């Protein structure tokens, strides 16, 4: 069954400086029960707005939202269920742990609101604190704790009511990298134990990939692509997704008579199979770690620089005036100014850059 459904959701803001801006548009989502679903995108892409509409903190400008089959926001009918009646759990980026309450009172808050009996509150808070390894710290005030511990309080507070849906608004981005990795596993483990559906909003692609069953990439208020992490990484639908989900080379190329040439060169075709659905000028997108580099086979290039990246080595290679990054585990194969040969096993093909899109993105960052 679909736990969360969004139909044609749209949200516009009006600000004095920018006039009316469409924050998100045409959002259609069906998120399954027990799924871990990520919404990924750069700041200003509308991911947080989408999440806040699901939570009920923002009104919709158009569209419908259903939770567990029940409508919670339907613009047309003027239906709106306030956040406190949506039965959700939510964890915020800034932790939002209340500084005037100790850990116990923070976690007990949702149960106290429901007016549960005292002994039930006590035992449920205890078990929630245990599952985030904070047991025994009930009397401590959050001001004395580290960011990681505060985020655990927030997690415990969210799971204590056994919510069906857990909304995570960049919950890891205020933590240091090591802790972040640990928390990922803990969130996954909690999901397994309590069996809730997760919507996870982040701008960190590796986080999203590690956690989610499916992800949505958003850009400038629109849905760009929904798929599993592997498919998204291997088959990005647009240049933006390719760029956002990992390291990328974008090379300006031209198709001529079924062959691909570097821009400004029509004598040496690249050793690749031309796409069937594109003609003329285009972009060839490659991942630095998929390119094969060797001494005699492929397209000729010249090493500009060698960069040591501990487990990998990266070369900047000049191919007819365009620079391409190549990462390989083999060490010390080439030095600067050496000649090398490149093969591109699985490139993706996209349209050339659009200047207008870049300007639009800059404007949205101001919202």
């Amino acid at each position: 069954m679909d736990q969360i459904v969004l139909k044609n959701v749209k949200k516009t803001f009006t600000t004095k400086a920018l006039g009316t801006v469409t924050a998100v548009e045409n959002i259609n989502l069906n998120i399954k029960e027990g799924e871990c679903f990520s919404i990924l995108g750069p700041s200003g892409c509308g991911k947080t707005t989408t999440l806040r509409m699901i939570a009920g903190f923002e009104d919709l400008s158009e569209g419908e939202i259903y939770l567990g089959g029940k409508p919670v926001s339907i613009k047309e009918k003027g239906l709106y269920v306030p956040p406190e009646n949506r039965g959700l759990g939510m964890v915020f980026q800034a932790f939002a742990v209340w500084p005037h309450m100790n850990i116990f009172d923070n976690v007990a808050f949702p149960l106290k609101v429901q007016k549960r009996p005292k002994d039930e509150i006590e035992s449920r808070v205890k078990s929630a604190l245990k599952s985030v390894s904070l047991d025994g710290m009930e009397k401590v005030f959050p001001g004395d704790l580290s960011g990681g511990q505060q985020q655990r309080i927030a997690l415990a507070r969210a799971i204590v009511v056994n919510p069906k849906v857990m909304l995570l608004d960049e919950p890891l981005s205020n933590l240091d990298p090591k802790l972040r990795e640990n928390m990922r596993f803990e969130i996954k483990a909690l999901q397994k134990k309590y069996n809730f559906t997760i919507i996870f909003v982040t701008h960190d692609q590796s986080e999203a990939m590690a956690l989610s069953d499916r992800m949505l990439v958003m850009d400038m208020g629109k849905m760009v692509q929904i798929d599993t992490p592997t498919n998204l990484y291997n088959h990005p639908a647009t240049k933006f997704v390719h760029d956002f989900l990992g390291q990328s080379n974008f090379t300006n190329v031209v198709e001529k008579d079924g062959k691909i040439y570097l821009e400004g060169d029509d004598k040496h075709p690249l050793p690749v199979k031309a796409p069937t659905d594109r003609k003329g000028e285009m972009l060839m997108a490659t991942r630095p770690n998929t390119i094969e580099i060797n001494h005699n086979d492929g397209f000729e290039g010249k090493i500009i620089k060698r960069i040591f990246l501990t487990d990998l080595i990266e070369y900047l290679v000049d191919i007819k005036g365009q620079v391409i990054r190549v990462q390989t585990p083999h060490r010390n194969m080439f030095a600067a100014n050496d000649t090398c040969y490149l093969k591109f096993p699985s490139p993706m093909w996209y349209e050339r850059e659009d200047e207008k899109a870049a300007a639009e993105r800059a404007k949205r960052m101001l919202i």
Partner: protein
Amino acid sequence: MALFKDKRTDLEKQEGFKFGLEQGLTLTSVILLAVIVVIPVAMIILNTFWDADGHLDLATFWNVIVRSDNLKAIRNTVFISFSATIGCALIGVFFAWLLGRSDIPAKGLMRTLFSIPFMIPPFLGAMCWDLMFSGRGGYINKLLMSLFSLESPPIEINSIGGIIFVEIIYFFSFVYLQVISSLERMDPTLEESARIAGANQMYVIRKITLPLMIPSISAGVLLVLISTLSHYGVPSILGFSQNIYTLPTKIVERMYAANGSFEGIREATALSILLVVIVAIGLVVQRAVLNVGRYDIIKGKSMRPTLIKLRGARIPLFIISLVFLAFVVIVPLVVLVLVSFLKAYGLPIIRENFSVVNYVKVFSQKSVIQAIKNSLFLSVSAGVICLFLGVMVAYVVYKVKPRGRGLIEMLAVLPYSLPGTVLSIGVILAWSGKIFGIKLYNTIWIILVAYCARYLSYTLKSSASALQQVHYSLEEASRSCGATKMRALLDITLPLIRPAMVSGFFMVFLPAMRELTTSVLLYGPKSRTLGVQIYQLRDNGYMCQASALAAVTIVIIIVSNKIVEFITKDRKGV
């Protein structure tokens, strides 16, 4: 020089003791603080408990306290102040929440209007209310009586209730401003996470928002409490005619009655000490009631805080706010201006009775021009002196850190909680020729000394917080480039705190322009201030002329506030 010895680090011990810049600044601060703070306070204590021959005498003090009219003044002071404080807290928090958190319409306009009561000197406000509601003479009372054919005036502002009401109106902004600024900086997810947890709007306000606001409410309440306990203007304007005295007005009355006699002054100093004790008790009570730690509620990404939808209550609350603003801000000012154009006080407000004669009369008086000049001179010089003194003391306390820095800081902020009347008496006692034969009484200089003591804490606070933000590595970097300590101070530290210095100057200049409490005891024939001049015009029965001068003063204050707002906004980040 024991003051400096213990703070020296091993490094400095190696260099050997030197009397350098830091020691010089420390010594200067200590001496200046002794002159403007310690001596006046000491003189009050001396005069209260020792008689003219130098014998210890507690009887006078006791006799003064137990006199029935003084006891009544104590009761009035405490009752008025506590009622006003509670009123200010309720109104301040309510409107701060409404304007800071809800989706009430016309916020920009309402905010501007709400900033006006903060600017208007309370004693001018009291004058306006007196014009409207003083018994049978008040214009609004007259209007109401004729409209509803009442026998007696419906409202008597010259009463304890009236004093409380007017003080609430002109002091609630202390709470309002504190709370609204912390509401605006509060991380909105603190409230949102409570909504998600299942709490409805009212529950969130009660359990999350209000408790988190307690530190700022507490700060605002503290300001109101200190101000109302030691406030002179409102109770003097509204209370004298009905023989209602508070301690500050009683002290001034005793000082006038003493006419320079030693025994008379001792009565006033005894009351002063009593007042100081009451303020101290008030502070203790305030701490006990609103004792809270400092929360860090400002973190996370800045996001538009979600405004709470008032839905059905939106329009009613909007109307309530507008009525409140109209009554508190607009109507009093309109009445003041109307009266200032009347040919004579008491005439009905109709077109035939209007003329500009009051303005002409007021501004052709030499004493008025002199008073304006005096106030300008005093405000500018007190601003400049406090600015430098404040930076110096802040530098000593937070950068030099000599032993006993806590005492230095305490001395500098002491006059802040010292009632203005008390401070004036101390200054009078100190500088009437008893110490080194220095006689400043009846000159403008004695007012300047009092202003400097009174406003030093303002500049000290603003420069201290700025100095604490200047990381020591910035100064060290300049030292490593070869600059001396002096050079580092002049080229690095001072330029970095310049915005705070500029706003510090205006924090002194603006209140000094409208000062009454201190100068009412210190003015001489040629050193009247603007506040004293208005007060005396009114006291002598020139109600319309006083209104004219008050109207002009209020315009000047509002305009200069707007100018300052503009300047300091521009300078941010210099």
